[in-house]
C-alpha cells in the first residue's frame, strides 16, 4: 500500500508544475494571433504604425516565450520519476508521438521565430507575415498531442491493454486522434489562449491610456485584441458546451461534482450558486434535451438505469469487477509460463473485466467522489469570470468604436485589473478538468494511488519546495523584464 502523503505530495507537485506551465502557454497562443493580425494589417495597408505596433507586442511575446519555454519539460521529468507506473502503463500514447511533435514544433518555431525577429529587413513583407502566422500555428500544433494524451486519460479509446508488456497498445490511431474529448479539449484550450492574449493586450493598453501615453497605439491594440478575444470567447463557449456534453457521457461523476448534484434525474437543475437553481438547465446543457437524464453523485454510486433502458453498474459492482480483473492479471502473470491453459482463462477473465481494472484498487466507494466543493466553485469561477470578460471586451470595443473609451477611466482601471482574472479563469478550468476526474489518472483504468512511483515522500516534498522557489524566482524575473518593456513602451508617438 502506498502512503497517502506520497500520493498527495506527488499530485501537488504535478499540479504546481502544470499550473505554472499554463501561465505561459495561453499568452503565447493568444498573443501570436493578435500580433499576426496586426502584421496582416501592416502588410495590407503599408502603414508603418502597424509595423511598430506589431514589433512591440512581439517583444512582449518573446519575453513570455523565453520564460515559458521548457517549463513543460519538468512534467516529462515527473512522468519518469514520480509517475513511472502510469508512464509505463499508458504505453504508446506518450513517448514517440510526443517526442516527434516536440521536435517538429521546436524546429517549426525555431525557424519561423528567427525569421520573425531577425527578418524584418531581410525577407519580404509577405514572407515575414507568413513566418509570424506559422509561429502561432506551430505553438498551437505543439499543444495537439499532449491534449490528445490528456483526453485519452479522460476517455480511454483506441488502445488495448497487453498484460504481457503491462502496457496499452494503440489499435486505432484515428479513434485516439478524433476522440471527441480531445477535439473539444484542443479547441477549448487554444481559444482560451486567445482570450488570455486579448485581455492581456487590452489591460496593458488601458494602462497606456490611463497614463495618457501612446493613445493611438493603445486604442488600435484594444480594437484588434477585443475582436480576437470576442471570437475566441465565443469559440470557448461552443467548445465548452461540447465538453459538458462529453463529461455527461464519459465522466458523469465529474459533471455531478461540478454541479454538486447529489440526486439527479430528468430535467436536472443548474446551480447558479448554492440554493439558487435554474430548473432543467443542466439537462439542456449536458444532453441538449430539456428532459435529458443527468445522474447525480448518489445515482452513480448506487447504480442507475437511464430512461432508454441502459443500466449503469453501481460502484460496488464496478469495484467487484475491478478486483476480478486485478486477480486475473496477477494469475495470468504467474501462470503464463507454467500453465498456458489456465493463463488463457485468466487472460479471458481479464479482457472481460478490463474496463473496470482501476476499480480493483478502490477500497471504498466514497473514494470515487472527487472533491465536490473545489470542483463546484472552480467551474463557477471559470464560467462567471469568462462571462464577465466577454462582456468587458464587447463594452470596450463598442466604446472604442465610438471614441469614448479613453475618457472612461474607471473602465480602463477595470480592464487593467482584469489581467489576473483571465489567468484565474484558465487555472480554474484545469482544476475542473483534472480535480474533477479524481481519483482517476486514467478513467476507470488507473487511480492516482496505483499510478504513483514508490519513491520517498521526502524527495517529493523537497522538489516541491524547490519548484516553488525556482518558479517564484523566474516569475519575478519575467515580470520585471516585462514591466520594464511595457514602461519603455513602443514609443510610436515620439518617432
Amino acid at each position, binding site marked *: 500500500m502506498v502512503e497517502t502523503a506520497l500520493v498527495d505530495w506527488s499530485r501537488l507537485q504535478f499540479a504546481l508544475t502544470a499550473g505554472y506551465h499554463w501561465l505561459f502557454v495561453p499568452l503565447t497562443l493568444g498573443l501570436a494571433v493578435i500580433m499576426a493580425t496586426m502584421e496582416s494589417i501592416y502588410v495590407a495597408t503599408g502603414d508603418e504604425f502597424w509595423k511598430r505596433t506589431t514589433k512591440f507586442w512581439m517583444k512582449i511575446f518573446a519575453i513570455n516565450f*523565453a520564460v515559458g519555454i521548457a517549463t513543460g519539460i*519538468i512534467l516529462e*521529468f515527473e512522468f519518469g520519476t514520480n509517475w513511472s*507506473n502510469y508512464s509505463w502503463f499508458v504505453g504508446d500514447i506518450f513517448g514517440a508521438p510526443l517526442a516527434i511533435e516536440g521536435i517538429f514544433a521546436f524546429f517549426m518555431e525555431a525557424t519561423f521565430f528567427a525569421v520573425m525577429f*531577425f527578418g524584418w529587413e531581410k525577407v519580404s513583407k509577405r514572407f515575414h507575415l507568413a513566418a509570424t502566422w506559422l509561429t502561432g500555428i506551430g505553438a498551437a500544433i505543439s499543444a495537439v498531442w499532449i491534449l490528445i494524451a490528456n483526453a485519452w486519460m479522460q476517455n480511454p479509446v483506441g488502445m488495448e491493454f497487453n498484460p504481457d508488456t503491462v502496457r496499452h497498445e494503440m489499435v486505432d490511431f484515428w479513434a485516439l486522434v478524433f476522440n471527441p474529448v480531445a477535439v473539444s479539449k484542443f479547441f477549448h484550450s487554444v481559444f482560451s489562449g486567445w482570450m488570455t492574449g486579448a485581455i492581456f493586450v487590452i489591460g496593458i493598453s488601458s494602462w497606456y491610456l490611463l497614463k495618457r501615453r501612446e493613445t493611438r497605439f493603445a486604442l488600435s491594440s484594444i480594437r484588434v485584441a477585443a475582436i480576437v478575444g470576442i471570437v475566441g470567447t465565443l469559440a470557448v463557449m461552443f467548445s465548452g458546451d461540447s465538453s459538458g456534453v462529453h463529461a455527461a457521457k464519459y465522466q458523469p461523476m465529474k459533471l455531478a461534482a461540478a454541479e454538486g448534484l447529489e440526486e439527479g434525474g430528468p430535467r436536472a437543475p443548474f446551480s447558479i450558486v448554492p440554493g439558487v437553481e435554474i430548473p432543467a438547465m443542466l439537462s439542456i446543457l449536458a444532453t441538449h434535451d430539456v428532459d435529458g437524464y443527468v445522474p447525480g453523485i448518489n445515482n452513480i454510486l448506487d447504480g442507475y438505469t437511464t430512461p432508454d433502458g441502459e443500466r449503469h453498474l453501481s460502484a460496488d459492482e464496478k469495484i467487484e469487477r475491478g478486483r476480478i480483473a486485478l486477480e486475473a492479471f496477477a494469475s495470468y*502473470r504467474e501462470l503464463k509460463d507454467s500453465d498456458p491453459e489456465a493463463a488463457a482463462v485468466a487472460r479471458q477473465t481479464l479482457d472481460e473485466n478490463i474496463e473496470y481494472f482501476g476499480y480493483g484498487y478502490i477500497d471504498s466507494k466514497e473514494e470515487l467522489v472527487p472533491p465536490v466543493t473545489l470542483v463546484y466553485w472552480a467551474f463557477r469561477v471559470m464560467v462567471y469570470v469568462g462571462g464577465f470578460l466577454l462582456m468587458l471586451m464587447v463594452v470596450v470595443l463598442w466604446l472604442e468604436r465610438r471614441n469614448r473609451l479613453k475618457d472612461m477611466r474607471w473602465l480602463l482601471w477595470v480592464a487593467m485589473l482584469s489581467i489576473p482574472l483571465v489567468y484565474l479563469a484558465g487555472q480554474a478550468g484545469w482544476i475542473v478538468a483534472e480535480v474533477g476526474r479524481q481519483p482517476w489518472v486514467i478513467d476507470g483504468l488507473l487511480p492516482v494511488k*496505483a499510478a504513483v512511483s514508490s519513491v520517498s515522500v521526502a524527495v517529493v516534498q523537497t522538489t516541491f519546495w524547490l519548484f516553488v522557489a525556482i518558479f517564484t524566482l523566474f516569475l519575478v524575473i519575467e515580470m520585471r523584464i516585462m514591466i520594464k*518593456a511595457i514602461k519603455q513602451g513602443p514609443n510610436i508617438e515620439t518617432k
Partner: protein
Amino acid sequence: MKSRLMAIWNFYVEGFRAMTWGRQLWLLILLKVVILFVLLRGFFFRPTLAGKSEEQRIEYIGNQLTKR
C-alpha cells in the same frame, strides 16, 4: 546549395549579433536550461525505470500494479 546554407548561417549570426534586449532573454533561457537539466534532472529526477532492461521493467511495473 553551399551559398544557400551560408546565407541561412549568416542570417542567424547577424540576427544574434544585432540583438539588444534579446540577449537578456537568451541568458535567462540558458540559466533555466542549466537549472532544469543539470540541477533538477541530474540530482532529483532520476527515472524510476532507468538502468532496467525491458524485461525487468515489465516485471517491476507488473509487481507494482499487482501488489498495491
